[in-house]
């Protein structure tokens, strides 16, 4: 039951020291005042608390269980980050107040920028983008602006078929024409295809590395040389940076632009779908194009620099998701140089361990060591009449969130693959139990496929009818009322 349906006229969960002053609207806003919004719910404070507290318990979450979501990096969100980010000296600051009054926040942002530069090997950063896709758009707009100034005929962007959907969408939104590059039989970029496609109309190639199958791009050096030699730029999608910290830096590999998902690699919470934050780093020759403002330090004073004539402009109203940046900042400060390396090391070991445990039941497409995640196939199970979706849903009954399924989309992964990413946060016992559950389910598939087909059983709702939702399109209380 929604909050709207729990409404009883006359109730209220909050009172202010004033009542509605009807005369105000009549006196000051004679003709523009709307009628009262009669349809907002009216509930007492306890009703409100119970409503949302019970909703919260209906969610799976990192704090209650394991999310083996490939490419999503659902790691632990340290509680100290939340405490720091709730500091009123940050939350209660107005973004347009004098820089002199915000030196603490600006210092934090500047130090974060410097850390990200060091971690990625890039020369400058904007902290403004609100999430990964926003970061991609920012990065692609920078490349677009650069090419407009230097080589305007470059209007295409190359994107591997293994890429996350945001890559082509972002490139397209930045005004580029998207050209898909096929993968080779080892899961990397097909070099011959690249050679053919990489001409003087191509502005850049967008790569995720390790790619979305958890494999490092073996030919990255050759790709970088080829693209650069033919006048293109390299864009690095940082979705999978969790595997690389302290090991490899995208900047050193030849990437010109990177975006990072702070809510993946740097432990800020996902919040059921944001807010995230996705700083974008660039090599020096692109720094002038960064969106304004940019945090700078001049003579020991921190400031927001808006005077950047080549800037692509603004990506949002203010300077980015400061409270999210703060969490990532605290995480990086606490991990330090060795901690970040230990993180990637543990993430890689964990992924290979899960792969080793599950391979006999769900074979990997390529038998190579993976980095921070592994793609496994459930193709053989169709003979029992069950799909990967059924296996995934059944995992919920065992208390696990399913892995990422049916992604990536390219051959040989086009069907029935799951992508498992344990992250460094998970203990050996958790991984062991999770793998045990999957192995048990693989048995159940043979012996009692109905158990999978009707799964999940132990959740607050069973499988939800997506067609019904699309057909009826009830997306608000007003739709329900039919008014």
């Amino acid at each position, binding site marked *: 039951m929604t909050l709207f349906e729990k409404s009883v006229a006359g109730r209220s969960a909050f009172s202010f020291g004033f009542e509605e002053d009807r005369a105000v609207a009549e006196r000051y806003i004679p003709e523009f005042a*709307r009628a009262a919004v009669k349809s907002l719910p009216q509930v007492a404070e306890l009703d409100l608390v119970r409503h949302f507290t019970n909703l919260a318990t209906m969610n799976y979450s990192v704090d209650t269980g394991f999310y083996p979501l490939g490419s999503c990096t659902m790691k632990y969100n340290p509680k100290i980050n939340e405490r720091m980010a709730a500091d009123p*000296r940050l939350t209660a600051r107005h973004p347009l107040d004098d820089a002199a009054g915000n030196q603490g926040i600006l210092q934090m942002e500047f130090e974060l920028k410097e850390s990200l530069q060091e971690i990625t090997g890039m020369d400058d950063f904007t902290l403004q983008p609100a999430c990964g896709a926003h970061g991609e758009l920012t990065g692609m707009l920078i490349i677009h602006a650069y090419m407009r100034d230097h080589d305007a005929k470059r209007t295409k962007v190359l994107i591997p078929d293994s890429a996350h959907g945001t890559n*082509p969408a972002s490139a397209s939104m930045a005004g580029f024409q998207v050209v898909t590059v096929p993968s080779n039989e080892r899961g990397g970029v097909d070099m011959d295809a690249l050679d053919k496609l990489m001409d003087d109309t191509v502005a850049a190639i967008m790569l995720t590395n390790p790619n979305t199958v958890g494999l490092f791009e073996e030919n990255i050096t050759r790709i970088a040389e080829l693209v650069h030699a033919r006048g293109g730029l390299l864009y690095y999608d940082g979705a999978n940076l969790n595997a690389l910290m302290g090991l490899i830096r995208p900047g050193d590999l030849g990437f010109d632009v990177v975006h990072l998902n702070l809510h993946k690699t740097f432990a800020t919470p996902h919040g059921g779908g944001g807010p995230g934050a996705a700083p974008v780093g660039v090599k020096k020759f692109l720094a002038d194009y960064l969106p304004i403002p940019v945090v700078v330090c001049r003579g020991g004073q921190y400031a927001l620099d808006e005077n950047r004539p080549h800037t692509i402009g603004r990506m949002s109203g203010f300077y980015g998701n400061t409270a999210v940046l703060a969490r990532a900042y605290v995480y990086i400060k606490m991990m330090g140089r*060795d*901690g970040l390396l230990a993180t990637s090391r543990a993430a890689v070991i964990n992924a290979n361990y899960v792969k080793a445990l599950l391979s006999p039941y769900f074979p990997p497409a390529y038998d190579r060591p993976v980095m921070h995640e592994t793609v496994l196939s459930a193709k053989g199970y169709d003979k029992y009449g069950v799909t990967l979706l059924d296996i995934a849903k059944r995992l919920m009954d065992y208390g696990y969130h399913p892995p990422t399924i049916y992604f990536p989309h390219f051959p040989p992964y086009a069907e029935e693959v799951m992508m498992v990413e344990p992250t460094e946060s998970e203990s050996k016992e958790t991984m062991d139990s999770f793998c045990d559950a999957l192995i048990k389910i693989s048995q159940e598939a043979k012996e009692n496929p109905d158990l999978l087909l009707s799964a999940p059983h132990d959740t607050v709702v069973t499988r939800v009818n997506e067609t019904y939702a699309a057909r009826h399109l009830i997306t608000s209380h007003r739709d329900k009322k039919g008014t």
Partner: protein
Amino acid sequence: MQSTGRNRFSFIPATGDEQQAMLQKIGLQFDDIVKCFAGNSCVEGGLDLPDGLTEDQMVDYWDTMMSQNSGPRKASLLGAGAYMHFIPAVVPHLASLPGFVTAYTPYQPEISQGTLQSLFEFQSFMVELTDMELANCSMYDGASSTAEAMLMAHRVKKADRVLVAATVNPDYLATVRTYLEPHGIAVDVVKMNGDGRVSMEDLESKLSVTACSAVLVQSPNYLGIIEDLGAIGTIVHRHDALFVESFTEAMALGLLKYGVGTGADVVVGDGQSLGLSMSFGGPHLGVFATLKKYNRDFPGRIVGESIDTKGRQAFVMTLRAREQDIRREKATSNICSNHALNALTAAVYLGSVGESGFRALACENVAKLQKLVSGLEATGHFTRVFKQSPVFNEAVLASSIPPEDMRSRLAGVPVFPPLALARGIAPEVQGMPHTYLICATEMLKDSILKQVLGALS
């Protein structure tokens, strides 16, 4: 490659022994795995970052750093896109429950009903408040959702030209330009009238030149003034463009008309005022509401009501075919993660203040600004510009006090000083060369107002 980071043990459960056991199961040493990929390209000598801090050290470091900010403020004369409102304790309490905070995007509806239902409720609130038919489950902030609205209009209307009122928040305008620039869409600005509102004549005339995909108007506009959206909507529709209504101050939704009744095709804005702290500008909350006829065109995610296999009410993300993970470069937007937790927060806030509270708050904001303006005018150092135009909780005042003085006079008062406007935004009033955009909310209690007036007399 042995790690010694002090904190690794807090956030990384695996002990050295366990990692050895796992590597044994894998059948490789870690260096072998790395070599498979990285060859010899490992970061030479490790990252040049300091050693990790322990939690107690971190708290000290943070405390020292944050004490460099100026002291706490009880109210703000500064608005212009970020507003200081009272946040009931129940709002952060509920919005910080771990089941909400540490959950993933609700792709698996069976174990995500908490997020899904709360987003459905957020959408319901937005539909009611904007008086539109369909609201998505959030965008990043007001500026970027405004930009997305213009892109949507372009997808629908295809004309490579849009009009933006000169009275729109300049940072919103800048964001719109950034988003539209690579598509070669011209952004023309519609002039402001002497009353601080968009010029109907200029709008009519600019619409008559060539086709436009959209007209963007903000209300209350950057100068705090309420635009006549209904009248503008009539003109816009006469010229077959989409009418995009934008707002920076969501509190105005409680008192002003938007949406269907004023001819809007899209209503976009920033929801920060709905229970979210200003947080130095982010994360805020992008609101995006539109008409059902655009249900294949709008950006962002949306939650729909459905049923489970047992016929029980259940919520699920719907209209997914528009989205990037399915349509890739042909998606309506690249948006993936949005600001779900902030949408939840807004839903809790609106559930808390309720119907009458939200209306009362909106009225109180109007009344507080009027009180502030009268008080300032009474000092003799201020006079309202655009005197005849209705305002919500912000207004432009001309003043004899220069910005540096303004700041130093208010130094002892716990308020953020008002925004000094650049020359040219508002007409100069004789003898008062400085103009300010001044904001008042319910936070400006009488005791603080008195201090403000005392400092500026």
